[in-house]
């Protein structure tokens, strides 16, 4: 899949922002006055900034409001509804802390649940796509949720929670890679099933439909950079998990915490780039992709 910068920025920043809102909603920490203002401002800049970035890839952004209507079936619509609800509830809750030094706990819990729900709906947009086997499994929502909570704990200054959640997030990301690497083969879709000709012999793409490129190839058959996947996975894991955990264990100060947050942010962005760049859509089969993988599979006998 094409790793569109707008979508990577969105999922990285919003994940972190809504993760922070979860912790603020639960009252860990429960600051008041100016400190509360800084915390909420940071959370809103991340969450809203990400949401705005996500509209950049739309063909018709001026109609974006229509995307709130189809929550019955569409995870993208549910994400829109859930995120706006979370931001509104948390705005009232935040106003209580900033202006009245009063913590309206129930409102905070609702806001925290909605914030976590927003991250879940985001992850389900990808998980529900059966045509991308790497995403179409439970490791996707688990990875999104744990990493969002880990980033939130890191920003909220919850050192113990952050260490535990970062380790869990690292495990979830690792599981997503391990399961994902086998997912396409396990889904059983080959050029043989795509054309219905597999039972007759070995199917090979002989000639594409056109000499130039097209939307499908640009959007779904992204192969650039896959050869560096392993190196990028190691870099992502070090930046996202290892470095922040070491900093929290060895030197938990404000200055180093900022380094840990930036390192985590860069790591998540790298992992999210891989999340898209490594994901293979089954439509690539029609254009002769994965031939190297299929060549290793036994040919079906008629």
């Amino acid at each position, binding site marked *: 899949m094409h790793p569109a910068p707008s979508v990577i920025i969105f999922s990285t920043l919003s994940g972190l922002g809504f993760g922070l809102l979860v912790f603020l909603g639960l009252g860990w920490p429960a600051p008041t006055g100016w400190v509360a203002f800084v915390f909420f401002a940071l959370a809103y800049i991340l969450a809203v900034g990400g949401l705005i970035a996500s509209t950049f890839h739309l*063909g*018709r952004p001026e*109609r974006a409001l*229509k*995307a*709130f209507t*189809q929550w019955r079936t*569409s995870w993208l619509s549910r994400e829109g509804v859930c995120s706006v609800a979370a931001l509104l509830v948390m705005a009232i809750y935040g106003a209580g802390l900033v202006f009245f030094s009063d913590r309206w706990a129930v409102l905070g819990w609702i806001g925290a649940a909605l914030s976590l729900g927003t991250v879940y709906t985001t992850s389900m*947009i990808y998980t529900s796509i059966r*045509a991308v086997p790497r995403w179409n499994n439970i490791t996707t929502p688990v990875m999104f949720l744990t990493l969002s909570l880990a980033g939130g704990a890191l920003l909220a200054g919850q050192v113990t929670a952050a260490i535990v959640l970062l380790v869990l997030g690292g495990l979830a990301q690792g599981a997503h890679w391990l399961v994902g690497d086998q997912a396409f083969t396990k889904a059983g879709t080959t050029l043989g099933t795509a054309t219905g000709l597999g039972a007759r012999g070995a199917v090979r793409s002989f000639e594409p439909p056109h000499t130039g490129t097209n939307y499908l190839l640009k959007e779904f058959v992204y192969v650039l950079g896959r050869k560096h996947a392993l190196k990028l996975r190691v870099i992502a894991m070090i930046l996202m998990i290892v470095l922040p955990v070491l900093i929290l264990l060895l030197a938990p100060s404000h200055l180093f915490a900022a380094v840990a947050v930036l390192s985590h942010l860069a790591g998540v962005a790298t992992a999210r780039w891989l999340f898209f760049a490594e994901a293979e859509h089954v439509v690539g089969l029609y254009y002769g992709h994965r031939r190297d993988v299929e060549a290793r599979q036994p040919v079906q006998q008629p």
Partner: protein
Amino acid sequence: MTQLPTATQRKLGLVIDLDTCVGCHACVISCKGWNTENYGAPLSDLDPYGPNPHGTFLNRVHSYEVQPPDLGTGTPAPAQLIHFPKSCLHCDDAPCVTVCPTGASYKRVEDGIVLVNESDCIGCGLCAWACPYGAREKDEVEGVMKKCTLCVDRIYNENLPEVDRTPACVRTCPAGARHFGDLADPDSHVSQLVAERGGMDLMPEMGTKPVNKYLPPRPRDASQREEIDILAPFLEPVAEEPKGFLGWLDRALDALPGGKS
């Protein structure tokens, strides 16, 4: 809107005969022509006369080579070239419809056609992600998703002569490889073709339940596999061993150093 109907009254769709298709791309061109001039936004072309022309198409023809396995005869069976037109399959369980956040995508209850209401589409592209077949493309000029409409503006169009009330691709196919009809009616000619020829689904494991069916190529004639031609026996060598002058030459060359192979 994006909830799929539990059942549709009819299932209009295409049956594509892979045995007959000659890969001429006439369906691609007639589709592009009709759908650029009629329903919805035109199908744009970018850089059409420049070095990198590309654009929106609702129907594209791939070509595949199928190499049958060697059945122990020693000589591999001849490979087959199969031309493969691909467009929207108007799935019963269309994943492109349910993911649509705006309700622009829908499946019609009356005939099962999957359509996009272009004035509601925000061009997020999620429907194209959800489609395993690559049947939806975002038009780069219009910013909305384009897909096969089954020529909904032809098949019910009473301004057209009756013979033209089929999708443009079907009307134009010079080989008669494309058939249009109601696949919910077991007596329709398309349903009968599917029953007779073993019509198949593409990627059945994706659970989309496509309405469109593909007719597999018929098996090759046995004569092609075993005997080249009925006249072949007349072309067999009349003499296995050379005689006369050629016989002497053969023996003389063999006798030279390195001659006998």
